[in-house]
């Protein structure tokens, strides 16, 4: 199991967002909206996770008319296991304060503060 310290708060928030519906492909803008991360922060995290085999990516097969194809992301099996472990560790670390912390984390993600938002699937 990966230790919590292996992921930054922002990476955990991305993993958390991807864990919500692990089988679904997600696109970058949705992830950005969910995590509150900007594109310049979100994509380096996705790239690093993909490099480590935790996230898989593909191109949308049928783009909307007049729009370019979108890049889609979801956790791999290894990524799901790793994310679950990391988020569980984060949740344990936060203990009973996890739920309020989750709300605070969501706010923090929007405002840019460094607080973990654990969402254990």
């Amino acid at each position, binding site marked *: 199991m990966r230790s919590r310290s292996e992921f930054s708060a922002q990476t955990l928030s991305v993993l958390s967002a991807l864990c919500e519906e692990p089988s679904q492909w997600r696109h970058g*803008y949705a992830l950005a909206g969910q995590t509150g991360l900007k*594109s*310049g922060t979100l994509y380096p995290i996705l790239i690093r996770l993909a490099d480590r085999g935790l996230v898989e990516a593909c191109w949308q097969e049928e783009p909307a008319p007049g729009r370019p194809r979108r890049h889609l992301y979801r956790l791999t099996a290894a990524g799901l296991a790793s994310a679950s472990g990391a988020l569980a560790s984060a949740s344990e670390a936060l203990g009973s304060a996890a739920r309020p912390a989750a709300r605070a984390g969501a706010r923090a993600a929007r405002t840019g503060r460094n607080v973990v938002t654990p969402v254990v699937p």
Partner: protein
Amino acid sequence: MSGLRPGGGAIWLRRVAAAAGRGALRLVPAGRRDWAEAIWAEAYEVPSGFRRLAWRAGGVRVIAREALMARKIGRWLLFAVAAALAIRANWPGPPGRFATAIARMDVVTTVLLLAGLPLLARCFLGPAIYSRLARFLRAGGYAAILALMVAKASVLRGVPAETGPALQFDWFAQIVFLVVMAGYVAAILALTAPRSRVAPATLAVGTGAGIALGVVMYAVAPLGLTNDATEPWLPGAAIDPVVVLAWILLLGGPVVAGAVAVLRYRGPGSPQQVTNVRIWQGGAAGFLATGIGGLLVTVLGTGTVALMPRAAWLRNLLYPGQQLLPAVAYSHEFAASERVGGYGLILLAFPVIGLVMGLFGVAIGNSATSSGSSPGGEGPPGPEPVPDPPDRGLAADAEVGTDEPRGDLPRWNEEGPDNEHGEVTAGVAGCVDVAT
């Protein structure tokens, strides 16, 4: 004011940003281009206006990091500064003088060559091999050639210009010199490019032999070529050991380099393919051994001659124990500046000698390997195969003209060493931690 519409500025800005982003995508390494394209495509989902602009700004940040633009910009800035200094050094002089015209032509042509040929080389041969030695060779070669132009201009200023046919010959010689320099730049770029398939061991042995040859040749002829058996700063024996060593390195160095390159090569392929690659490795090692040696002695020698009139310590070093009267010193300086042209012969002849002798080395290396084993089989232990990983060639190919998605780049490529991307992304994440 019919030409202006409300929001026209913002629309124009977005168009410029979009165009810049599309252009910047070309800078991203092939293995990362999907990601850059993804950010750009995703921008169409972001509500237009400031939010979309912010999204694209973030994309540009990612693209810049992935393209390792900081490093590229740094390299280009360094080159620009060096080129500007060289131009500044060569430009002054009375207009209409032969030396002034040559100095200007040399430096402008050289800067254009050094700036333009890498772009061509990148198109046809791919970016530089990812290795410190390859970078050293490119940077060293560039620095040497720029320095040579400055030193040559300085020497030429001290030589009275010829007239009539002699002047025409001088112009011809200068143009030949520039063509030779272009050849050197092209050779440096080609031998350090992935598609030339020069193995790291070949580069290493060729460079080592070349530096040794250059240093010894400089000890033999620091003030241009002369017919004298020995120079005044040498001990004065009829056959000086340093001269003998120079001959050994000139003729034997490429042979040894070629043989070692062959022996060190252990790559895949049929025996015929392996034999062909070994011939190429040996020839390249020999060529490098004498080419680098020739360039090194030319730069050092021309620089020495250029510095002689300005540096008393250098004159004392070259003529130890002699108190040179000004007239004698000038005589030496003049004689040296007349003999500097001999380095041109070295620049021309050495690579040819190296190539031929390197092929002799190939024969020796092949006979050594065939006596012990079949080609490509159990040769002497050599750690590295030729840099021919599965997809770098494809990625390099792809960089020329297509935008197809490609796999990750192997470690030895300039743009895509895994560790570099690891550092980049880790660095980004680190910045993220701090920033958010």
